[in-house]
């Protein structure tokens, strides 16, 4: 029987294929493993991620000249997708390190947890390389469905289940809106491949139908990256989900969502950027304000970091707006795009670092981690307090950290692209963010008294936080290698 695609196409998705097999293998193994030996599953999951990461260059070399399109234009392998695949694998690995004790000491078996984490990673990897609206949609749902379950994994905790229910209802709703937008785009252009949509948009006259479709797709995407006014789910889900899962949600899915956001809107809807740029600009402005002002009022640390991540989604939108700054897409001058790649890497490091320290705090009850829990941390563990200060400085965008360089690149890209008002707003909101980040610093250094909360030494989390710490400082002092890498990984 003849295959509808050349067999070599399978090599393009080799890392994803192997990772899916390994995830299913872990799921099977989980059915027979004894509860006290579950830690082996976690190490096996880490090994699976490492194997998938090692296969990325193998797939790239088998694929021949990049960008390589496969499966009739459904999937593409290029520098852009490789960059995001590597980042999502890193995010999943850090999450597993965070989960070792958190899940191991919980009353819930860990097998399905790790398998779901790997499957959601597969979904994110496919999102990074999808070049057809259908493959992007299916990958998105693979990611999202695994995440709904992960959010509610601690199923006897009311907060966890509530987080899952909210995430599910709003997530499914936003998928419906996205699909409706896609159907309008399909109706107007008659194709669903991004290249085809782009070509049809060049030729087609302006039509209301098409504009509504593009705006609805934008709304669906804004939901996925938790931008205002579609952000309401994020703080609730981050608060209610198990802490390692919250950390993962704040980073992994957002990276993947930005990858498809960039691809759909540059590769697909690029010719109509006049239609969608105002929508994105309005959302970016609103997101920066809502995220940073909302965080001021929070006492729960996970909620605070949730609002802060909404603010960061707003900064990253500036980069999407500015993708054309200084040259055509794909040129090294496509400033906005490589600024986003740099910024998202920095965001991964500093957000995981901050969440890692929340994981290390032994909370009094499920999802009750408050700012007060950090009281007097400086005396109990000066090293951890110092690391937290660096992460918070980086989140606020103060040198010499990666967060500063990333924000600087984003803001200068937005200036070049002609959005000065948004840049001013962004700088103002960064100043606002100092207030709430400093509240944690104040709790650690200036408030007396041992918080009643115990501090837990845990090597796996410490290693992960140490990596994030090293990266945050290294890319802050020496950003050039990462910038060079990001420049070589632009959209074709």
């Amino acid at each position, binding site marked *: 029987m003849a295959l509808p695609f050349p067999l070599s196409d399978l090599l393009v998705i080799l890392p994803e294929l192997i990772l899916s097999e390994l995830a299913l293998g872990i799921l099977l193994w989980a059915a027979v493993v004894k509860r006290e030996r579950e830690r082996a599953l976690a190490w096996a999951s880490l090994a699976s991620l490492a194997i998938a990461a090692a296969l990325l260059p193998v797939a790239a070399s088998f694929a021949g000249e990049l960008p390589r399109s496969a499966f009739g234009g459904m999937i593409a392998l290029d520098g852009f997708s490789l960059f995001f695949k590597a980042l999502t694998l890193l995010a999943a690995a850090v999450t597993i390190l965070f989960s070792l004790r958190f899940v191991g000491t919980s009353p819930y078996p860990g097998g399905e947890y790790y398998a779901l984490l790997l499957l959601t990673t597969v979904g994110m990897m496919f999102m990074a390389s999808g070049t057809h609206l*259908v493959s992007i949609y299916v990958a998105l749902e693979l990611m999202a469905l695994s995440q*709904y379950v992960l959010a509610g994994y601690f199923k006897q905790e009311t907060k966890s*289940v509530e987080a899952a229910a909210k995430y599910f209802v709003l997530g499914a709703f936003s998928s*419906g809106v996205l699909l409706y937008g896609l*159907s309008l785009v*399909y109706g107007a252009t008659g194709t*669903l491949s991004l290249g085809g949509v782009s070509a049809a948009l060049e030729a087609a006259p302006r039509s209301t139908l098409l504009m509504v479709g593009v705006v609805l797709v934008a709304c669906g995407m804004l939901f996925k990256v938790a931008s205002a006014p579609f952000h309401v789910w994020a*703080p*609730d889900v981050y608060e209610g989900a198990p802490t390692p899962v919250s950390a993962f949600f704040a980073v992994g899915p957002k990276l993947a969502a930005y990858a498809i956001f960039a691809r759909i809107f540059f590769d697909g809807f690029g010719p109509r950027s006049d239609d969608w740029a105002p929508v994105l600009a309005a959302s970016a402005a609103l997101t920066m304000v809502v995220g940073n002002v909302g965080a001021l009022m929070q006492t729960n640390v996970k909620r605070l970091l949730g609002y802060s991540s909404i603010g960061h989604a707003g900064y990253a939108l500036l980069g999407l707006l500015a993708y054309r700054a200084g040259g055509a897409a794909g040129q090294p001058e496509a400033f906005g795009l490589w600024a986003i790649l740099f910024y998202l890497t920095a965001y991964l490091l500093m957000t995981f670092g901050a969440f890692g320290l929340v994981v290390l705090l032994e909370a009094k009850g499920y999802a009750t981690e408050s700012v007060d829990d950090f009281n007097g941390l400086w005396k109990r563990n000066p090293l951890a307090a110092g690391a937290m200060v660096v992460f918070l400085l980086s989140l606020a965008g103060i040198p010499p950290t990666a967060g500063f360089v990333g924000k600087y690149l984003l803001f200068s890209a937005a200036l070049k692209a002609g959005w000065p008002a948004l840049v001013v707003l962004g700088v103002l909101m960064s100043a606002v963010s100092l207030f709430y980040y400093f509240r944690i610093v104040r709790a650690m250094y200036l408030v007396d008294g041992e918080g009643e909360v115990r501090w837990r030494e845990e090597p796996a989390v410490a290693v992960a936080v140490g990596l994030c710490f090293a990266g945050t400082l290294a890319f802050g002092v020496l950003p050039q290698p990462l910038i060079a890498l990001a420049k070589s990984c632009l959209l074709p």
Partner: protein
Amino acid sequence: MEGAAMNAVVPMTVPLNAFLAVGTILFVIGLAGVLLKRNALSMFLSIELMMNAVNLLFLAYARMRGDASGQMVVFFVIAVAAAEAAVGLAIFVALFRAKRSIDVDEIASLKW
């Protein structure tokens, strides 16, 4: 699927606009249901209605353009909706066990 038959624009007895109108109305009913209903199951049913409305639109456009890819989308959407139903209903069962209610107004330990 015969390529020739698919590629020809087939004349329709029911005008295309009728399909589009029904699809859009169904979508809006679903949208209103999600926003107005307070029972999680009803909200979920409304979401399913939205997805089926989209299916109808994809089929109508596929017929209009004589292009098979719109029909292909529908199969994917149906499969995803089935998976979504499995996950969603499981979450609602867990929610009911924890709260003895699936009324979203009572889901308040996290600020909605």
